[in-house]
């Protein structure tokens, strides 16, 4: 099956309309909590960008944006430990910072980012995630704003990818069983 093909997709799990409505709610909550303050939204490339773009426009307090990128674990990792491959452009000392992430499951990456940013002495540091899989959490991170709890399925779209494909989809969509079977075969784990 070719990467990024439509046949790799299954059913829609959350429609773009449902996601938009929840993002607006999160924007209202954040605007209320940070009333009278300026907020720095920090997104983690690449997955968080689409959520950040919509969330930033749903927030009514003044915001600035910044980005970082992390080299995660995998066969192509060029390092023996997690590290930033792109740091923030601006200092966050004394700033109110909100980390904006698309999805959290184990919390390993977010835990690393949270600790790293906390050491930079922001005035406050909170986390906003759109999609959550708390039952797989290994590292506890205080999460102030949640969007949706995800079902136990591999999903793509709205920033979430499968081998860097499907991020652009407006809906959240399950990967097809055929694609998952193919992928599970590659890592020699049974699919069931």
């Amino acid at each position, binding site marked *: 099956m070719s990467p990024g093909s439509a046949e790799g997709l299954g059913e829609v799990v959350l429609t773009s309309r449902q996601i938009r409505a929840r993002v607006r709610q999160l924007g209202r909550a954040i605007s209320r909590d940070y009333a009278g303050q300026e907020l720095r939204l920090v997104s983690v490339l690449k997955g968080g960008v689409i959520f950040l773009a919509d969330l930033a426009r749903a927030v009514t307090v003044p915001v600035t944006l910044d980005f970082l990128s992390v080299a*995660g*674990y*995998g*066969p*192509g*990792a060029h390092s*023996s*430990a*997690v590290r930033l491959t792109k740091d923030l452009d601006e200092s966050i000392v004394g700033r109110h910072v909100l980390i904006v992430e698309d999805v959290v*499951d*184990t919390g*390993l*990456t977010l*835990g*690393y980012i949270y600790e790293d940013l906390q050491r930079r002495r922001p005035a406050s540091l909170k986390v906003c995630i759109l999609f959550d899989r708390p*039952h*797989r*959490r*290994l*590292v*506890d991170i205080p999460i102030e704003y949640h969007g949706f709890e995800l079902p*136990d399925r*591999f999903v793509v779209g709205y920033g979430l990818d499968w081998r860097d494909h499907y991020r652009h989809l407006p809906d959240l969509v399950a990967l097809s069983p055929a694609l998952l079977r193919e*992928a*599970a075969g*590659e*890592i*020699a*784990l*049974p*699919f*069931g």
Partner: protein
Amino acid sequence: VPVVFAHPIEAEFARILDFYRVRWEYEPKTFPLEWGPDGLVKLCFTPDFYLPDQDLFVELTTLNPRLMHRKNRKVRKLRDLYPAVRVKLFALRDVRALMLKYGAVPAVEAQPESAA
């Protein structure tokens, strides 16, 4: 002393934790779960990993879901008898998702119940 893991998935899990600088211990504690009339332990459970910074035990399994009842029973009993102990069971679906997410390629198959 190098840790000898019982299963390749456990070794991969340890590598992932190391990568993210999460401290771990391998099978550091055995919890008695059932005792016979003579007071001897009949059933016990040794979770695979302990993450001290999270105060969390983690049990990984690649058991076929149909064979999970004994493992689930052990985890339930552990939670009943030791309510202060935090334990997380990563079932086959979770292990597979973890390996898909991190692109790891350990050569493993589903285990018969007695082996995992």
